[in-house]
């Protein structure tokens, strides 16, 4: 490292208004993007708090019914909350996808998915109430000012602005030979000049990442911050290496700028766009007909089945009810069987959702297989996984939803078929199990 060259480059950077302004401008957008991420995160947290407050009020209301000896709401005389069927129905449950503390560093696919889901016994992981928040679709395609987007897509352009005329300008001005005379090795001179910008960029970006980490979770408690720093630094280093070689073999600065922009276009726009197009051709957007079929037609068909057939299906899912299986019990348990249909439908939904997840996984495998020549998508998805905002973070959310639906149906079956009478203590147990 030659300190003189670094110092010279620093002076050049300070005096060059275009470079200085671009850098300050970029850093300002980075700060804004982090603020934007915090706003999104806070907005989700507030919605989750609102829902939780509302649900808590409803729980308190039901507990009061128990304490006052009421059977349910005044205008619904048929409700009896001592019956597990009704008390579980009156246990409102939501499953949440809590925003990651690192969301300000990358909102990823957050805006493509819903982050809360009300659960009832008929719910499924692909219900239509789990869609993304109400938003302007034209805004969604343009995307947010997102920190990860800035680093992955815009930082290379800043690097281009900072470095495109290193060596090229000397050739443009015809003083290149002078450089060769003053510095025995032009390559080392070039390395030192580019090193200044590398250090400038790396230090600035790492500081911002660390700042968000410190403010949100405390940097020492979260290795993910260091993973984000590592991946961003490797990414930046690769760009510097590519641009270094372009600068060595430059003909003039505009020629180098053209090549640098072409590389950016190729890796950030053309290759991901082509992969996107190919993946979509191979796996067109799914209209979810198989799932809709189960959710509607097959569900209605289940209602038409005889009780004995329903019982057989139930028994397969819940062997614990086997002792009840005889004709006499079937007649007396008619209501229980009809009330347990949701459990059969839930199993059908699980099977249908599994097929959808399988199709999506095949699509994801195809995407991953392109990472070798499509590194931007790799970086993007890895980054999103660190900020818990990728497809799989939302798949985990769907798994949580399914667990909650299962818990509700299992509880319903167990307590219905054992003839349990619900009191306030049992209800509080329900709250624990279902929330």
């Amino acid at each position, binding site marked *: 490292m030659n300190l003189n060259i670094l110092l010279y480059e620093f002076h050049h950077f300070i005096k060059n208004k*275009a470079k200085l302004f671009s850098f300050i401008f970029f850093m300002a957008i980075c700060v804004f993007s982090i603020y934007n991420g915090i706003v999104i995160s806070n*907005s989700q947290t507030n919605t989750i708090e*609102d829902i939780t407050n*509302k649900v808590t009020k409803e729980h308190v209301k039901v507990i009061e019914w128990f304490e006052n000896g009421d059977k349910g709401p005044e*205008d*619904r005389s048929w409700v009896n909350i001592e019956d597990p069927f009704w008390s579980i129905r009156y246990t409102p449950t939501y499953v949440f996808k809590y925003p990651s503390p690192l969301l300000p560093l990358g909102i*990823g*696919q957050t805006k*493509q*998915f*819903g982050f*809360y889901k009300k659960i009832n016994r008929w719910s499924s992981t*692909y219900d*239509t*109430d*789990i*869609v993304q*928040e*109400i*938003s*302007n*679709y*034209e*805004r969604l*395609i*343009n*995307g947010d000012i997102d920190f990860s987007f800035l680093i992955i*897509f*815009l930082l290379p*352009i800043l690097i281009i*602005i900072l470095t495109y005329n290193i060596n090229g*300008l000397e050739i443009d001005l015809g003083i290149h030979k002078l450089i060769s005379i003053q510095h025995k090795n032009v390559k080392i001179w070039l390395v030192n000049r580019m090193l200044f910008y590398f250090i400038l960029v790396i230090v600035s970006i790492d500081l911002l990442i660390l700042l968000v980490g410190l403010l949100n979770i405390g940097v020492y408690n979260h290795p993910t911050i260091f993973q984000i720093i590592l991946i961003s630094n490797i990414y930046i280093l690769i760009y510097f290496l590519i641009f270094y070689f372009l600068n060595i073999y430059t003909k003039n*600065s*505009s020629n180098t*700028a053209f090549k640098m922009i072409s590389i950016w*276009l190729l890796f*950030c726009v053309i290759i*991901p*766009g082509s992969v*996107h*197009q190919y993946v*979509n*051709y191979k796996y*067109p*957007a*799914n*209209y979810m*007909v198989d799932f*809709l079929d189960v959710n*509607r*037609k097959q569900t*209605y068909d289940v209602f038409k089945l005889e009780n004995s057939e329903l019982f057989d299906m139930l028994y397969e899912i819940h062997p614990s009810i086997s002792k009840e299986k005889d004709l006499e019990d079937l007649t007396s348990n008619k209501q229980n069987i009809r009330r347990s249909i949701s459990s059969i439908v839930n199993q059908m939904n699980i099977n249908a959702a599994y097929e959808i997840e399988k199709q999506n996984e095949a*699509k*994801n495998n195809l995407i*991953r297989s392109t990472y070798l020549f499509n590194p931007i*998508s790799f970086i*993007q*998805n890895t980054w999103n996984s660190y900020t818990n905002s990728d497809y*799989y973070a*939302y798949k985990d959310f769907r798994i949580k939803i399914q667990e909650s639906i299962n818990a509700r149906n299992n509880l319903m079956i167990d307590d219905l078929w054992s003839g349990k009478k619900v009191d306030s203590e049992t209800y509080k147990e329900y709250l624990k199990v279902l929330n």
Partner: protein
Amino acid sequence: MINIFYNEWKGFLRNKLFIFLTSFFVFSLFLVTYLSVLQNKKQIENQEDAHEYIRSQWDEIDSTNAHSAAHFGTFAFKPNTILNSLDEGINSVTGLVLRLEGHKQNDVAYSERSQSLEISKFGKFKPYLIFQFIIPLLLIFLSFNSYTSEVSSGRLKLLIVQGNNINKIVFGKIFTLYSISIILLIITIIIQSLFTFDEFSLDEMIRLFIFFLCYAFYYFIIISLTIFLSIVFKNNISSLSISLIIWLLWTIFLPKTIGNFTENLHNLPSRFELKEEMTNDRSKGIDGHNPSDKRRSELEKEVLKKYNVETVAQLPINFSGILLQADEEYGNKVWDKHFGRVHEILKKQKRTYQISGLINPFASLQSLSMASCGTDLIHHLDFLNASESYRRYFVEALNNEYTFVSTSGDNAYLSNNEFFRSINDFIYVSPKFSLFFHYYFLDALSLTIWILILIFSINYKLRKIVIQ
């Protein structure tokens, strides 16, 4: 000017890099347009299959209760337009499937982007990606030194001495570069037309023409702005740097920041807030399943009076059906109030964003490009409204059947298959562009204003230049 134009072309054709780049773009456009048409046709086929499958289920319904059939419902699948292959607009982020059923309006769900990992931030490699991101860059690189190189080589003086006017020289250069972009546009339009001609109507032709015009306008802006900057800055590096920074601001930075700004200016409610408000409003209405509802008695009195009978049992119709339809109509009013407000806010956001076309012509281009392909927000809202209108027709038909074919207390009455088949299918036809043009007038105006300002600015700047 013709001579300049002719000479410029001769110069370009002698340049191997230019030949290579142009051939590359022509080949890319051919390939990309063809593959996009194929991909789009496949998606349209899938949509039609899904639609037919769901309709066939409806047509095969056994005798069943009409109200149960309203719960069974149907689905609207968002169709792709033929021109979706040129610019898919918002289609990858909107849902594709909308469940239409009694009692409630659902959200359109299952967007393409929610079905996989993230791939491209800038969308699929379709013609619009080339037109919006890549060709403008090519034009910047072709034009940033076309004026300054004439000055530095002394050719400009020579041309003026020979009796040429500087305006003619500069505009000759602009039109030469412009003709390259027009050729690339025409090639794409021809390829698109070749592969989809049999499906074209007059409206599609108008839309293609608008598509062509908006890009033609934008390219003129890009070329003349780059040349204007090179006249102002008088050196290659400055004009290239500024042009690139402007390109970056227009295509990447401003759409995001202005989008953010419009969202903050016209706030959308959260889904939870909206649902709460709608539930509150709806609870004031008649719940078809709730016999204790106060409003029920008012309606009951009204109906008994109309049929001149004493009790519900004496009614020649099924009173439950009347209740259901009354609840449905109240629910529709609630939906109109709340979603009407949401749609209005979305339109306001769009309008504010369109105004930004005055500082960012890319916003106008993007808006017109999506609009001409029928893939923008306005077209999407039209699809949602058409689906909701159909849902109302569908549910009303079922409620009427339930009301007028059975009688009160006869809730187990089953309607036959013939009745269910008689309910019309949901067929969505994309509206004619002329009906929606007023939404995009501002975009067209912005692009025109940009062109006029640039022509004026170049003329003004050239008049001040003294050639010695």
